[in-house]
Structure formats: structure tokens, C-alpha cells
């Protein structure tokens, strides 16, 4: 692995300050992070700590107040299909079928190089990957929340992004559906070898999925408190890991960080 792969995403000295009616609000300060190609990184922290702010910066949806973000050696100047995003509330267009929702991204990325049949084949494959080939003709309003989120993942994956950004993708789902989608995601990532940055507030999700867990301090002016390397062999099985001492150790480390050192202090109103 050469240096550019070791430092696939580089975040240097990033700060983010929002202008609010009450004055300047410092959301992030001194964020320094590098992500290797093919790594699965989770960002965890209490709500309001700027996890999503950081993810939006990597996506290019917002620009930092200070500092630089690089992806594959190039500065991130705006959003682009090479950094696909899976949104927390799936954000499917309700007037398009699942197929057309996925096709929209496929057409944008591969439309200039491939013909319609190839584009349609890609779209079909992506839906198959998330196990939704049968729902291709349905509108988002006609399928369950878990299925919508899988379409959202299919839309992102179909673009063959270099980086997959996920903003609490399973946060709105029930525990059983969430576990199933986590397992599916593990398989998909193993197959596609995508680089993933995922925001979560679920300790088990973070440990189960990640190669590295980036733990963030409380806001305002949040920063990276600690980075935990999760050295569990893949493929990982949630059942086998349930009583694995190594897994428990990582889990304990994250819980310790979140609830002992960064115990959430409610701000006086």
C-alpha cells in the first residue's frame, strides 16, 4: 500500500464555525484524521458533537471555516459522485420507482460511457446486491423503512464510489432490521472493498463494523478525542462476537470514553 492509499482521505486542521442569530457557534476545531483506502471508519459521539458536520464536510456539502480536506490527493471542493452519501432518512425521491431512484445516480456517473442497457443492468445489479430486485418497480411509499434504506444504499453503491459516506443510516430502524442491514453491509463492503465513513451513535454498531472508531468529544467546539483500532478478524459474526473477550474489550473502551470521560453534561438553559 503506497502513501496515497494510506492517506486516502486526509483531514488537516479543520475547523467549522456556524453563524447563528446568537453569534458564532464553533462546531468543530482542530480535526486531524487520515483514512486508509478500504478502511471502515465509524464516527461516534454524543448528539450535537459534530459527527454529521464532519461527514458533510467530507461529502463536500459544506466547506470548512479553516483547514483542508483531501480525497485521493485532491482537495474536496464540493460534492461529487465519487463520494456517495447514504442519508439518515434515505432521501429517496417519492415520485420515482426504486429502480429509477438508483438509475438517477447510475446515469449521472456512467451515462457518458455506457449505453442504456448497460446502465439498466448496473441498476439491476445494485438492487440485487441489497436483495431488492423484486421491489424495483415500487415507489418508496409502498415499501418498508428498512427497504427504503436498502434502496438508499443501492443508490450509493451503484455509482461505484471511491468513498461511501453514511450518516446514521440505520438510526431510524428497529433493532432487528438494523442488525440484518448491518450484516448485509458487512458482506457488501467485503465484496466491493469500499472505503466507508459512517456516523453512528450505537456502540455495538461501531465495534461490529469498524476497522477504526473515531470517538469525538462533546460539542461545542468538538474535536477527535481518541481513535480506537478494532483488530477483529473478518468476516465478523455478531453471534460469535457476543461473548468474545476482545470484542468486549473494544466495547468497554468505547463505552468508557462516551459515558465516563465524555459523560454528557446537559447545558444549563
Amino acid at each position, binding site marked *: 500500500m503506497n502513501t496515497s492509499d494510506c492517506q486516502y482521505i486526509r483531514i488537516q486542521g479543520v475547523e467549522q464555525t456556524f453563524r447563528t442569530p446568537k453569534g458564532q457557534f464553533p462546531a468543530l476545531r482542530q480535526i486531524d484524521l487520515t483514512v486508509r483506502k478500504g478502511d471502515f471508519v465509524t464516527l461516534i459521539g454524543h448528539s450535537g458533537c459534530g459527527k454529521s458536520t464532519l461527514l458533510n464536510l467530507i461529502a463536500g456539502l459544506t466547506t470548512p471555516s479553516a483547514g483542508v480536506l483531501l480525497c485521493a490527493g485532491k482537495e474536496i471542493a464540493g*460534492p461529487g*459522485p465519487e463520494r456517495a*452519501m447514504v*442519508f439518515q*432518512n434515505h*432521501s429517496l425521491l417519492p415520485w420515482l420507482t426504486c429502480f429509477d431512484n438508483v438509475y*438517477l445516480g447510475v446515469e*449521472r456517473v456512467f451515462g457518458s460511457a455506457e449505453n442504456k442497457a448497460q446502465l439498466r443492468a448496473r441498476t439491476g445489479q445494485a438492487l440485487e446486491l441489497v436483495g431488492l430486485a423484486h421491489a424495483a418497480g415500487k415507489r418508496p*411509499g409502498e415499501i418498508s423503512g428498512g427497504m427504503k434504506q436498502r434502496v438508499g444504499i443501492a443508490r450509493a453503491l451503484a455509482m461505484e464510489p471511491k468513498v461511501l459516506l453514511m450518516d446514521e443510516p440505520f438510526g431510524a430502524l428497529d433493532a432487528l432490521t438494523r442488525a440484518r442491514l448491518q450484516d448485509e453491509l458487512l458482506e457488501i463492503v467485503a465484496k466491493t472493498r469500499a472505503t466507508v465513513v459512517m456516523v453512528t451513535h450505537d456502540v455495538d454498531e461501531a465495534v461490529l463494523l469498524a476497522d477504526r472508531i473515531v470517538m469525538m468529544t462533546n460539542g461545542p467546539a468538538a474535536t477527535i478525542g481518541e481513535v480506537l483500532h478494532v483488530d477483529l478478524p473478518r468476516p465478523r459474526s455478531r453471534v460469535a462476537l457476543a461473548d468474545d473477550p476482545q470484542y468486549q474489550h473494544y466495547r468497554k473502551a468505547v463505552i468508557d470514553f462516551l459515558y465516563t470521560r465524555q459523560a454528557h453534561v446537559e447545558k444549563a438553559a
Partner: protein
Amino acid sequence: MVAAVFHSPLETPAAPAPAVTPAAAAMVAVASPAPVTAPPQAPARDLRGLWLAVLPPVLGFALLLLIWQAIASTADSGIPSPAQTWAQAVQVFAEPFYRNGPNDQGVGWNVLSSLQRVAVGFGLAALVGIPAGFAIGRSVFLSRMFNPLISLLRPVSPLAWLPIGLLVFKGANPAAIWTIFICSIWPMVINTAVGVQRVPQDYLNVARVLDLSEWKVFTTILLPAVLPYLLTGVRLAVGTAWLVIVAAEMLTGGVGIGFWVWDEWNNLNVASIIIAIFVIGIVGLLLELALVKLASLFTYEEVRS
């Protein structure tokens, strides 16, 4: 107010539907002897539902006729009775499309010319209002620039614009169309602008992440997201336009349902005026129904987080 008046009769078309069920059930029962033993309460209950659906509207119309008859039978009211009006209506509708010169034409021609004026005025308003609404919705600058003007002009009665139309266009017909234009443009501008402002940020983020072209954003995201709002604007605009055209035509003359009302008043033919009132109501109701139907085709479940 228009909606309130027009909406209550909307429930009635749904009502006769249960009527099919008991009839169909009865036919099945006759065809095969086995289900005859089915509990007899079921059709009875259906019949009761039918009663509740049909009876109140029928009673409503009966009450109207009763009051009408009572007023008509007082000595010097000058209002023709429902029976006299009906007789007159049969005569009027026997030949709705006759022409005896420019001032004496059938009720069909009058309704069609009114509809034509509404269509032209409304179409021009849509051509100007919908793009203006998109521009105002997309740009904070334009929104701040035009909102005070719209707030100022919107409450003005459209008829106040009629003299300006007569002055500028030097003709009754263009002035009536101008009045329709000015009254239909506001609901379309405002609703389109609100619709554009309410396009969920998530959809626009999707567009940015996918890096879609402006045209693609417009056709696949903005337009479908705004369409329900836009159609509400269109519905309000058509409703107002149909209210206004009658009044405008009374003032401008020519051919049209409003002019027809005024003409019959000059002939002291009150039965025709009552007929015209029903015709105006029914045409307005049909316009409303058509647009509600159209809007329902383009309304999608909204995404909720």
C-alpha cells in the same frame, strides 16, 4: 370560502357507491342457493348506510325548494316558482346553441364564451405566474423584492382592475381577460413560490451529491416536488377566475354567462337568472372536481425522517 362551498357536495359522489354492494350481493344470493342462509342483517345495514348517504343531500335540496316555493308564493316577490323555472329551463336547454344576432344567443354559447375568456386569461396568468413563482421561490433577493408588491396587490378586488384594462386595451373583451389574468396570477405565483421554498433540503442534497445538471434537478426534483403546490394554486386561481368572470361580463357586456344574467335582468326574466345561477354553480363545481382529480394524480407520500 370557495373551497368550503364547493367541497361539501364533493362527498356525495362517493356515497352512491355502497348502493352497488347490496344489489350485487342480492344477485349472488339469487344465482347460488347456498349463501341464502347468510345473516339477513348485512343487507339491512347496507341499506341503512345508503339511506344516510342519500337522504341528507336529498333533504337539503328539498329544503331549498321548499324555501324557494314559499318565497315565490308570496304575492309581490316576483320570484318564479321552482316549477315555472323548470319549465323555463326545459325551454332554454332545448336549444342551447342558437344565434339570433350578437346579443341574443343560446346559453351554451354564453357559457362557452365565458369559459374561453377564463381559459385565455388564466392561461396567460399561468405562463407568467408559474415561472415567476419558481424564480421568487429560488431566489431570496427576488422574494424580498416582490413579496411586498404581491402583498399589496393581492387583496385588491379584481374588478378594480377592469377600468385599467378598458383604458389600456380599448375593448371590453381584452379588459375582461385582463381582469381574469390579474386575479388568477397571485395564487399561482404564491403557491409555486411556497412549493419551491418547501422542497426538502434532503432532495437538494441528493442532487448535489449526485452532481446533477440544473435541468435534471429541475425536471426530476423541483418540478415533481412543487407540482402539488402548483396545482393547489391553479385550483384556487380557476375558482376565483370563475367567480370574477360573471361580474366582469356584467360590466363589459358582449356574449357570456355574466352578460346573459344582466341581459335577462333587463328583460325582467327572473327564471332565466335562476337558471344561470345553477349553470354557474355546476360549471364551477365541474372545474373544481377536474382539478382536484388532476392534483390527486400528482401527490406523493412525503418523506418523513
